[in-house]
């Protein structure tokens, strides 16, 4: 199968909206407000933290809010100068992969976003900010995503278990299986 026709190509996977059993945007917003407008989305790799964060960014932008989105690089212990400039905002700040920051970097992030109307980060472990949502993963979730991508009902439990709940890795495995079907 050609890359362009593969239902598991990155653009399709990235376009999947965040979902989880019992997930509710209103409840999430309330939890963030209760936490003083500063909170963390927590979960292991491949559980949808970035997807949820990007969906949240889009919602805020659609509402017309000023939004700053910062994606931290691997092993980025401190914020870069342009990122610091961006954070001097009264808008809403979203930071992906906050666990990369070292202690000084986290202090700096909290200090620089003191005037921001809100701060949401994704991180692997709780602790940096109050946890407003912990991303779950389940074989049913994977089934649902695959159904949306392919239109087929597939039992994906074995793949989910093989990748220990990492949905991203499971979807990449499905990409390979589809790519191997016939020649491009």
């Amino acid at each position: 199968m050609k890359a362009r026709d593969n239902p598991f190509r990155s653009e399709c996977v990235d376009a999947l909206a965040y979902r989880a059993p019992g997930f509710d945007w209103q409840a999430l917003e309330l939890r963030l407000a209760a936490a003083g407008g500063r909170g963390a989305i927590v979960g292991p790799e491949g559980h949808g933290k970035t997807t949820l964060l990007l969906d949240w960014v889009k919602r805020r932008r659609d509402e017309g809010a000023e939004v700053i989105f910062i994606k931290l690089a691997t092993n980025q212990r401190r914020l870069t100068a342009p990122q610091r400039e961006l954070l001097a905002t009264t808008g809403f700040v979203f930071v992906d992969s906050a666990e990369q920051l070292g202690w000084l970097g986290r202090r700096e992030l909290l200090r620089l976003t003191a005037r921001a109307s809100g701060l949401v980060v994704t991180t692997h472990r709780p602790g940096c900010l109050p946890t407003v949502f912990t991303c779950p993963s389940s074989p049913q979730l994977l089934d649902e995503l695959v159904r949306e991508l392919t239109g087929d009902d597939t039992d994906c439990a074995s793949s989910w278990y093989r990748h220990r709940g990492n949905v991203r890795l499971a979807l990449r495995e499905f990409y390979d299986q589809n790519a191997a079907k016939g020649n491009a």
Partner: protein
Amino acid sequence: MSITRSPSGLAGKLGVSFFFGVFLAMGLFFLGLMVREVAQIAVTYSWKETTATILSSSVGEKPGKDDPFSPIVSFRYQWEGRAYTSDRYAFKPKRMDDYSAVEAKISALSPGTVTVCYVNPRDPATAILRREGWGIAFFILLPLVFVVVGGGGIYGTWAAARRAKSEPLSSPKGSGLGRGGTLLFGGVFVAVGAGLLVFWFLPAAAKSLASTRWTETPCTVISSRVKSHSDSDGTTYSVDIFYRYTVNGREYKSNRYASLGGSSSGYKGKAAAVEKYPAGSQRICYVNPDDPTDVLLKPGVGWELLFGLIPTAFMAAGAGVMWASRRAPKRVTRVSGALPAASVTESGPLKSRASPLARLFGITIFAVIWNGLVGVFLWNLSDGFQRLPGVFFLIFFLPFALIGLGALAGVVYCLLALTNPRCRLQISSSVLHPGESLEVSWTLAGSVHRLQRLRIFLEGREEATYRRGTSSYTDRHVFARLSLAELSNSLEMAQGEVNRRLPGELPPSFAATSNKIIWTLKVHGEIANWPDVNEEYEITVESGIVK
């Protein structure tokens, strides 16, 4: 030859230079300290020799210090008709924690003994009894390793960049340090390894072995305790048993426990040893029949023999580097006359993506550093290899040890791979076009007869990188392996050329941020029970279609 290279910007070079700069700075700092030390020793060799009479001698003790013992002497000497007295044993008297070693120094300096002292002619009131040996000069090699690595690394980083800018890509690749530099680098490793082996490990091991045949002598324990040593790295412990014994009617004292002693972090092992020697108890010590001050409570050897691996690893790594540099091909002039002029835009030997020497260099540095750190760690936690650590520790330690063993296996593998025949490839055009003829000529230098089969082929692959959150995944898929040569005859493998028409439709080389099409010429030679020859040369295929 046009070769697609991965970009190496100024920031990258500065980063690499900083890394090597730290090596260089550390090396220069310690080199400076050691040179200063050696210079001070050298000065005492210009001092004048004269006779001295010992007035008093004893073992000085400063309780509570880590190194409490030092030789205390007083001697009288004459210089230019005038009498002086001095109490300096050496230019920089060193305190020691080994009582017997100090006692051995002063055993030949009993009061009334006439001996030799060394007088500073510029200041005759300054005189010493003993000059330091030149052994310390050997340790200059240790910081020199850092200087060579650091300096060579910085030079290599920037020299490589200059070459890339100023020379045609077809120029044969030289080692970053050059042959002389590589020899020097390897030589330093061999010298350090040999020095450690000859001056440290072998004497200690020989003494440990010999001590099993020493004379059993009754001794009385004066005091026994576990001594703690605290510094910035934490607290370590050592067995500190002070005892007295008599040889030929003379009483001696010592605090030597075992041959390879020292302090380490484990407490229980030391406490158990100390418990066996309570103060006032009568025990057996083992005295060297040739030197009554040479004594041990615990003779023989154990795990400490494993220390011999450290200098051996240094020597093996250094020898490997030196040997490899001997084999490194000389720079050659470009050869293009044999190729059809019509299709030649530029030609010359292709460069492999990673030379075997570079691989060996990299894996050796890693193996030495990793295993050194792990070895020190294990030494500390196992009471100097005196006892087996607990099961929990072994489970924790196992992955580290396996990585270390893997690295050593990698060094061996790369060393073996250095003996492989080296391939030089040359192609007819710097840029390949679909449908055109590709002419490849090759020369294999070295023991070609060991090759069972040689394959040369053109490989095309897709590479796609996906980043999400903090994860980055790069997938590769080989879509083409176009055969150029498949040989099993030694004569044919040693040298040859092949002409092949490429398929009329091939995807071109392509490199975007996350997606790439990469073409390489690959040489694969099979050698039974030995690392295979695996060389890869990146080339450019341009778009086009020919029917």
